């Protein structure tokens, strides 16, 4: 497997094979390092650092994660020395500080201090672990998962409200095992532990087999057969012991078979390794379960270097918890498991990012590293990008809410179709740029071909990794891989490749706007107007550069609104009820409407805007939510404000709505084509509170995401099925339409 990292020029991709020396050059040398924390454990030293940048590929703050072998601590110290060199000018009277935790923080503290020339502040290990875990559970979308060999990794949806996080138990398995009970922020207690942990596994295995590296040991366990060294229930009884629920294949006694001549067991080192792994994991699982019982806790998280994302270890711990709890409790694991301590220590610093302001983070995988610093693990970690605002949930959202329609990890057909379609479209993007199709004419608008090629290489590598290891970045969804595409574009310095195209098409559409609204205004009945406006909105949604099927027509200018309207079929019937919406508008209308808009150009100008104008004419306040940051040819908040302003110049009705503040444009908080309605810009959420209709426009927002979303108010979805995967997932055909009105009291799932 290959892992990429990008050098400072931003245009050249530097491929490095896993296991070789990593590229210490950071992606963006203009970033300032603000905070550094290190957790020095028995086998790994983990560094978490926080950077800020005001220009370039991302604005705001970013958390980075990096792991080193403790045996190669020099590399780690050298890495931190470079970070210190890149840190902000020290505040007068305030010495630079590195937060440190873990057993080695004490042992190597003096060494760090003298070699880095900074103050080292040691944070209690348990305090760091719990602070880090609380933070990561809240901020990382796919942090927590369950694991079993049969079902693989299953991500557990994050808990939104802080009171739901607590109480929980953290079982930290290092040399020994600590069991912490956490009841609130900063409230934790070590309730128990055992010395039968990783140290015992290591010590016994080394002595019995001579294996010297932890990774080699984990590798060994994979092929071992513990039944060759353990005494099994079947060895004793010859059969199951059904009366007490023990199967013949259960372990009666670890290592109990090695000396029994009668059993004649022949065994290898691998068998011993597996037996010892089972012994330690089963025992920890049992003790954890008993503690959970005693303290009435239902959530048990496992962390520590013993786990390191090793599937068999997680499976055994899961098995033990499942066995002892009779299936009532699942063992929970964490993608950032190795980084809990370092993250918590960073947050304990005086200028920690969360102390300055409440914020939300988004994981950015454009530069992703294996979580455990080795190949044994199942996860890769990205960086955590900090948003300017704390993102909030749409108040009208019914829970439980899963933003994504298809689980690509579970659906192999959809997965390979999407991954290859996106790779194809990435090559097409290179083609478009090479032909100059995305340029507007002026040289400053020209999209840098080198950067687009760099993007294409980088993104393709991520797609390949996800093809081989679908859950490496958390749950695998279309929303995730489309978002990753935008992250990769930004990371190579391509802020908005469609900017010129969007301007060109928007200008053309604005020219057609007066005639377009005049035509619908001229229709004899309100009902006919509503239906025509819905038809235009669907037709407008055809204008999408994200759809490979349409790019040819768009680039040649062969697609106009009238031609697009011809294609609207309102089929399948179950997904289209424009009359029901029209009837409802005629019967009552709405007080406040929230519209999540899609593409720039004809889509928003000739499709969405006339519909919004009509709703405003009926007395509603209409809030148009547009992307905070560019994604494909989706219209952004800034662009939409400009569009609305331009249209108002030629349309009195719009001008009046704007003046009376019944037509508003607001950033959605989203930076990708899909939208997660739990993570919206707080300003939008403030405007959305009184909304009695939510409109979702476009395939990405209404089908790929939010197809199953339910609301406490009325909702309307307007989209065209523009590719085969999405059509297949909904049992529709390509270019079928979705114009579905769902009243708030309806139990029907769309």
């Amino acid at each position, binding site marked *: 497997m290959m892992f990429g990292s990008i050098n400072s020029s931003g245009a050249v991709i530097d491929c490095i094979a896993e296991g070789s020396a990593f590229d210490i050059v950071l992606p963006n040398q203009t970033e300032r390092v603000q905070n550094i924390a290190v957790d020095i454990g*028995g086998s790994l030293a983990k560094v978490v650092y926080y950077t800020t940048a005001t220009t370039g590929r991302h604005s705001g703050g970013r958390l980075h994660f990096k792991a080193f072998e403790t045996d190669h601590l020099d590399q780690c110290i050298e890495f931190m020395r470079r970070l210190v060199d890149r840190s902000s000018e020290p505040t007068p009277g305030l010495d630079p500080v590195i937060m440190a935790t873990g*057993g080695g923080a*004490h*042992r190597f503290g003096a060494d760090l201090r003298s070699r880095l020339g900074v103050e080292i502040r040691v944070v209690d290990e348990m305090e760091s672990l719990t602070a880090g875990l609380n933070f990561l559970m809240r901020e990382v979308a796919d942090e927590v998962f369950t694991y079993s060999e049969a079902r693989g990794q299953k991500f557990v949806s994050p808990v939104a409200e802080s009171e739901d996080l607590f109480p929980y138990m953290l079982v930290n398995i290092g*040399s*020994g095992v600590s069991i912490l009970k956490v009841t609130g922020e900063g409230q934790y207690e070590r309730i*128990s532990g*055992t*010395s*039968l*942990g*990783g*140290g*015992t596994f*290591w*010590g*016994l295995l*080394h*002595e*019995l087999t001579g294996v010297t590296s932890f990774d080699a040991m984990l590798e060994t366990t994979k092929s071992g057969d513990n039944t060759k*060294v*353990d*005494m099994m229930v079947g*060895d*004793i*009884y*010859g*059969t199951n*012991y059904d*009366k*007490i*629920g*023990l199967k013949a294949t259960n*372990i*009666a*006694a*670890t*290592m*109990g*078979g*090695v*000396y*029994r*001549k*009668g059993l004649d067991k022949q065994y290898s080192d691998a068998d011993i390794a597996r037996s010892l792994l*089972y*012994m330690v994991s*089963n*025992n920890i699982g*049992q*003790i954890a379960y*008993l*503690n959970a*019982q*005693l303290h009435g806790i239902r959530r048990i998280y496992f962390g520590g270097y013993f786990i390191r994302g090793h599937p068999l270890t997680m499976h055994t711990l899961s098995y033990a918890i499942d066995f*002892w709890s009779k299936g009532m409790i699942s063992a929970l694991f964490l993608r950032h498991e190795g980084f809990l301590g370092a993250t918590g220590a960073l947050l304990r610093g005086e200028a920690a990012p969360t102390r300055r302001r409440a914020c939300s983070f988004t994981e950015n995988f454009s530069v992703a590293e294996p979580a455990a610093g080795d190949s044994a693990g199942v996860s890769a970690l990205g960086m955590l990008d900090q948003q300017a605002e704390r993102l909030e949930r749409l108040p009208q959202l019914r829970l439980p809410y899963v933003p994504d329609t298809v689980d690509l990890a579970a659906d192999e057909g959809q997965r390979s179709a999407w991954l290859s379609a996106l790779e194809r479209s990435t090559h097409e993007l290179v083609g478009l740029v090479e032909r100059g199709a995305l340029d507007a004419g002026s040289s400053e608008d020209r999209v840098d071909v080198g950067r687009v090629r760099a993007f294409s290489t980088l993104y393709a590598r991520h797609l390949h990794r996800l093809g081989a290891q679908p859950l490496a970045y958390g749950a695998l969804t279309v929303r995730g891989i489309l978002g990753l595409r935008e992250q990769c574009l930004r990371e190579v310095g391509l802020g908005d490749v469609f900017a010129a195209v969007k301007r060109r098409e928007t200008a053309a559409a604005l020219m057609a706007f007066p005639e377009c609204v005049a035509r619908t205004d001229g229709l004899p009945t309100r009902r006919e107007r509503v239906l025509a406006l819905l038809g235009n909105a669907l037709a407008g949604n055809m204008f999408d550069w994200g759809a490979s099927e349409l790019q040819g027509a768009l680039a040649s200018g062969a697609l106009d609104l009238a031609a697009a309207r011809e294609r609207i079929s309102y089929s399948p019937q179950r997904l289209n009820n424009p009359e029901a919406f029209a009837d409802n508008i005629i019967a009552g209308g709405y007080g406040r409407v929230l519209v999540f808009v899609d593409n720039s150009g004809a889509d928003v100008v000739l499709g969405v805007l006339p519909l919004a104008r009509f709703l405003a004419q009926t007395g509603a306040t209409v809030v148009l939510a547009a992307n905070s940051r560019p994604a494909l040819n989706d219209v952004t908040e800034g662009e939409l404000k400009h569009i609305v302003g331009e249209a108002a110049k030629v349309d009195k009705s719009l001008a009046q709505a704007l003046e009376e503040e019944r037509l508003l444009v607001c950033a959605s908080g989203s930076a990708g084509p899909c939208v997660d309605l739990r993570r919206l810009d707080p300003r939008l959420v403030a405007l959305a509170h009184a909304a009695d209709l939510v409109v979702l426009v476009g395939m990405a927002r209404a089908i790929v995401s939010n197809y199953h979303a339910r609301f406490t108010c009325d909702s309307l979805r307007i989209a065209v099925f523009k590719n085969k995967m999405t059509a297949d997932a909904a049992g529709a055909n390509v270019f079928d339409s979705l114009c579905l009105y769902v009243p708030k009291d309806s139990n029907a799932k769309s």
Partner: protein
Amino acid sequence: MSTSTRTFSDGQPFIGLDIGGSCVKLGYVPDASTARLEHPLAAVIRDPSKSNCLGTEWGAKNAIRKLEWFGDSEHERAVYALWFLAPDFIGFAKRVKEDRELKPTPKIRVSATGGGALRLRAEIEEMLGVELLIVDELKALTSGWRVDAESLAESDGPVEYPALVCNVGTGVSLVSVGAAHGEYERVSGSGIGGATFWGLVQRLTLFTSFGDAVTAAKQSGDPGQADTLVGDIYGVDTSKAIGMPADLVAGFLGKLSAGKATDADVVAALLRMVTSNLGQLAVFQARLMGVNEVWFTGGFVLCVGERQEDSAGRIVRMALAEAVSFWSAGKIQTRFPPDALLLGALGAVAASLDALPQTT
């Protein structure tokens, strides 16, 4: 009201076998009818008052042990017991078989429990010339425990119910025993038991005798040479500074590969690991059950009539009591029935009594 009287209506003796993974226990109630039987098994155990009983001669490990039996209100009886290491029992059974080949006798019925009773049923029936009546292992264990534990009531105080019985043999079962006869439930268990200890001792040291290994560990073993201690991680001074005892164990056997541990040190560390873990499981289970005492039984506890202060069993029992005291901060008491090893065999005998037809 008349009491029920059990008779040997079919001339079958009261013999119970507990065929475990490591050793075989045999209990029996001597009786006039047993005396009349020509079966060699009856001959072996006949006249237990003789010090050089045939059973001992044929491989039984322990001298005849006499227990007062409370199973029958009218006829207080004594139960006698023998035990064998598993390979010795095979030798014993062969002797019985040879004897029967010389002088054929009819089969007798014998109650049997333990894993081997199921697994080796056909072989044992053939060799001993018996028909095995299988008794559930935990049923035998708990009814034997009840008899044995209640025998302590006068001297050591009454038995609390529900009682938590941790049977540590090859593997470990944690059983909750109710006040009513026959009421019991396996509530937990562990694969880290006597066989793990012994298996690891065999793989890691040159000891060949359990007693020698445990005694050496007690006399000259320092588990801190094999275990990773807090002081090994933080250094003694830092340990003090952060308020953790430097000699606290962080990881059992984590320092094995340093190569400084002698065989006695390794056994001491293994004993500490296994007993600490047992103590911890027992204490958690006792808390969940809301009881203040835990009972340990089974071969690992080795209480077969050993009363010498320095015996291996005594060392193991001390270690278990220490672990329970540590994990419960002294709040939970550790108790041992006087005949921990023999409970299964006692229970099997009890079952053979129960199985008899009752006459008024």
